[in-house]
């Protein structure tokens, strides 16, 4: 099985299993709830809507964790790959790539809708899209890592484990929207790059630990 076929398989599973649409619909549902909570004041929504969409993106990243690694571990698919000589780190990296493909671009499209809902101006919507485009690989990498860590134990602890680790992304990402945001975007890129590069090793080690 080649790397591309592995990615294609994960994408197909995401498509048929609802993994593609559910996080995006959830993202929009959280965004829509926000005006109900704070009231329809257009000025307030314009000022805080971008940050709210960041939080919604983080919550949406939590949703698919259950189906990222656990089904493949239970069905023995991961063992099969290991028997064929695949390195766990390589499988983890491909899973992250596949998860990003099924999570990142749809989320960016949904962000356009969210930006329209909150009537964000062009500059802010651009910064928001750019920031999320930079951050989604890191979110996908974190999701896969936490999914590998909680595959045996079940997803109960996943939220408590993922959200603290994602906070640097949120700080710099939402920080890039604010008035004094010099340097926030490069820092966001640095954090995202670091997480994306390190995650395959942590996730690979966790997948190897699943075989004990």
């Amino acid at each position, binding site marked *: 099985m080649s790397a591309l076929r592995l990615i294609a398989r994960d994408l197909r599973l995401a498509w048929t299993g609802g993994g593609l649409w559910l996080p995006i619909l959830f993202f929009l549902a959280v965004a829509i709830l926000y005006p109900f909570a704070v009231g329809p004041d257009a000025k307030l929504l314009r000022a805080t809507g971008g940050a709210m969409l960041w939080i919604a993106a983080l919550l949406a990243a939590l949703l698919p964790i259950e189906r990222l690694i656990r089904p493949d571990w239970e069905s023995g698919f991961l063992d099969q790959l290991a028997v064929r000589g695949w390195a766990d780190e390589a499988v983890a990296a491909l899973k992250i790539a596949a998860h990003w493909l099924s999570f990142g671009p749809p989320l960016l499209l949904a962000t356009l809708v969210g930006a329209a809902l909150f009537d964000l101006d062009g500059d802010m919507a651009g910064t928001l899209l750019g920031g999320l485009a930079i951050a989604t690989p890191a979110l996908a990498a974190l999701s896969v890592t936490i999914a590998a860590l*909680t595959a*045996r134990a079940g997803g109960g602890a996943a939220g408590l*484990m993922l959200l603290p680790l994602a906070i640097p992304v949120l700080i710099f990402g939402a920080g890039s929207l604010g008035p004094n945001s010099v340097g926030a975007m490069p820092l966001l890129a640095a954090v995202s790059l670091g997480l994306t590069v390190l995650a395959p090793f942590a996730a690979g080690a966790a997948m190897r630990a699943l075989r004990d």
Partner: protein
Amino acid sequence: MHRFANPTRFLKLARPLTWICFWSGLALVLGACIWGLAAAPADRLMGDTVRILYIHVPTAWLGMGGWVAIALASIVQLVWRHPLAGIAARAAAMPGAVFAGLCLLSGSIWGRPTWGAWWVWDGRLTSMLILFFLYIGYIALVNASSERGQTSRTAAIFGIVGAVNIPIINRSVVWWETVHQPPSITLSGSSIDSAFLWPLLASVIGFSLLFGAIVLMRMRAALADIRVEARLQRLAAA
């Protein structure tokens, strides 16, 4: 290091050490508290509220130190497969979480009269709160994956991953200059007057000894659990 891989040999040392750490730590903490609350002078600007320092600083130090201990023990567990390292990492999680919580609580009580607010979204406070949540996540993961006596490697991996937060907490007061004061005690010296420094030092050492005693107690309890399990299995097999 592998000398103490044998639980019997470890317990032989741990049994007396627990009580030495516990009683000397308790004596030091009580002494430091009496010293700090009654004998040490009040601060020129902060008045009597400065006295919470003798609780706040040791708990903050141990809240962070607890996770460093988890991370180091996890590395030892993964690299050298040391059988006690995983147990040590798990044993440090609960007291670490309690101390991190106490640090947040005492800081919040101190912040009300001094900054005029229970909570400020300052870099140091926020990153400490994240550490507290990481502890909770770690404990939840350990509990969820507990086949008794089995020290799971997933918890060790999470312990190492979570350690990225420690340098952020440590540097936060330098990176985000907001409300929390910058470090007063560094490797090159201290900007605290010696009237405050000595009781503080006694209290830090005392709380650290207590922390060590709690970790040793929890490790002994975990080892006893494993023994009970093994004996029950032998009985069931016979």
